[in-house]
Structure formats: C-alpha cells, structure tokens
C-alpha cells in the first residue's frame, strides 16, 4: 500500500515547523534532525492510525514529543550536559548566531523549565491553540495556560534585567555575565 500523496504532502509541509520545535526541545540541530527522522519513521509506519482530515501537525508533534520524552528519561544526564554545552557555546560566541539581543533571548529561553518552554513554544510560536497544545503534551488545558503564563513572566523578568542598560556600551559583556549568574 503506497502512501496517499495528499497525506505525504501534509507530512512534508509540517516538517519545517516540526524541526523548529525539535530544536527548541533538544537545543541542538543535529539531534533535532535525528529526532525528526525518527518521528517520521514512526509516523509513516503507523500512518493507519492517523485519521485523514484531522490535525496532521498536532499528530506529528505528539509523536515527536513522546519520542523525545522517552529518550530524555533514559538519557537525562546526557541531555543536561548537552544543554549546558549549548549554553556555553552561546555565551562564548555571541557574534556567531547573530544579534546580541537574540542571544539574550535564547539564553533566557534556555533557563526556563522544559515544560514551560515547550508550552510557550507550542502556543506562542507553533501557533497551536491551548487545547491542541494540551493534547500534544497530554495534560489539562489549564496546565498549559499556567505554564505559558509562568514562562512569559519568567522571561519578562530575565529580559527586563537587561533593559536597565539596554543601550549601554557593553551589552555583550552584560549578556555573558547575566547568563552565568543566578538572577
């Protein structure tokens, strides 16, 4: 049985957003692409369980998140190390990935608890409704709402610290310092 081309195209058109979500979970492009590949293998092997006409992005995001979570439980320490290295890379090469402000934001995002970051990204960047995000994460809608709120509040706290001297002469230095210390 060959895959319906319409379904295949729905899968393909979800891939860019799926990758962005995977990178936000892993903090690492190569691992994220592995995770996306694994997700697609799993999804296409079980394509019969997808009901045509339902939400393809939500279905794929759910599979990816579950794969990441099960892997994360197995390799918790390794993942934390990877996140630490990722943060270090950002701190030591602020010019590498663009504007300083962008790196400040990435750094602040990296400081959020993973469940808050995930909820914020699903709702604030992927464009899912609170209900869809709750279904993807397997939790109550109210839980997603409170995670998103806490994530926004925490980010606002972290970022407004830097507003104090937003146009100061050594913002890069400051970003490095605020990235290392507790705030």
């Amino acid at each position, binding site marked *: *049985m*060959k*895959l319906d*081309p319409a379904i*295949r195209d729905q*899968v*393909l058109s979800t*891939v*860019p*957003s799926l*990758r*962005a979500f995977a*990178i*936000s979970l892993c903090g690492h492009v190569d691992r994220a*692409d592995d995770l*996306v*590949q694994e997700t*697609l*293998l799993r999804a*296409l*092997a079980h*394509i019969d369980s997808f009901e045509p006409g339902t939400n393809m992005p939500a279905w794929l995001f759910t599979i990816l998140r579950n794969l990441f979570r099960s892997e994360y439980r197995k390799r918790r320490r390794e993942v934390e190390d990877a996140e630490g290295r990722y943060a270090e890379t950002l701190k030591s090469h602020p010019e590498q990935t663009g504007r300083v*402000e*962008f790196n400040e*934001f*990435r750094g602040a*995002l990296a400081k959020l608890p993973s469940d808050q970051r995930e909820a*914020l*990204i699903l709702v*604030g*960047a*992927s464009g899912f409704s609170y209900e869809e995000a709750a279904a993807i994460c397997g939790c109550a809608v109210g839980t997603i709402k409170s995670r998103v709120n806490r994530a*926004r509040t925490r*980010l*606002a706290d972290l*970022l*407004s610290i830097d*507003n104090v001297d937003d146009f100061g002469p050594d913002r890069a230095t400051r970003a490095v310092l605020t990235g290392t210390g507790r705030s």
Partner: protein
Amino acid sequence: MKPGKPVNVEPSAPDAETPQARDAMGRPTHRKSEVRLGREVQARIGQQLRALYDEVVKEGVPQHIADLVRRLSEQDDPAA
C-alpha cells in the same frame, strides 16, 4: 487629594511622587513604568520567539528528510 493645589507637607511625610518610594523589600517602586515595561517586554517576547522559530521554519525541508519521506511513501510497507 486635590491635584494642582500646592500643599505644604512635613519633610518626613510619605509622598507618592517621591522618586525613592520603596516597596516592602526596600526596592524602589516605579509602578507605572513597570506596567508599561511589562507590556513592551511581553511584545518583545512574542516577537523574538516567533523570529527564532521562523529562522528554522524558513530553512524548509532538508533534502535528506524530503528523500526519506518520499522513499518511505513509495514503499509497499513503510515500516520495512
């Protein structure tokens, strides 16, 4: 309180206009600017979050992933 009318106050009297008003933790309070800043920061959070995300989205589908999906979708049994 009657606005616009100059009043004499004791030097030690609490004054809402005092720039060094402190909260319970002894931190200076600037309520109005905090609310405004909050909104600005919130807007910035939304913007930067989407910008960061869209940077990746704009990369589209990497070739090896496109190939994988096409290959799997042409197979009789995608699981094989």
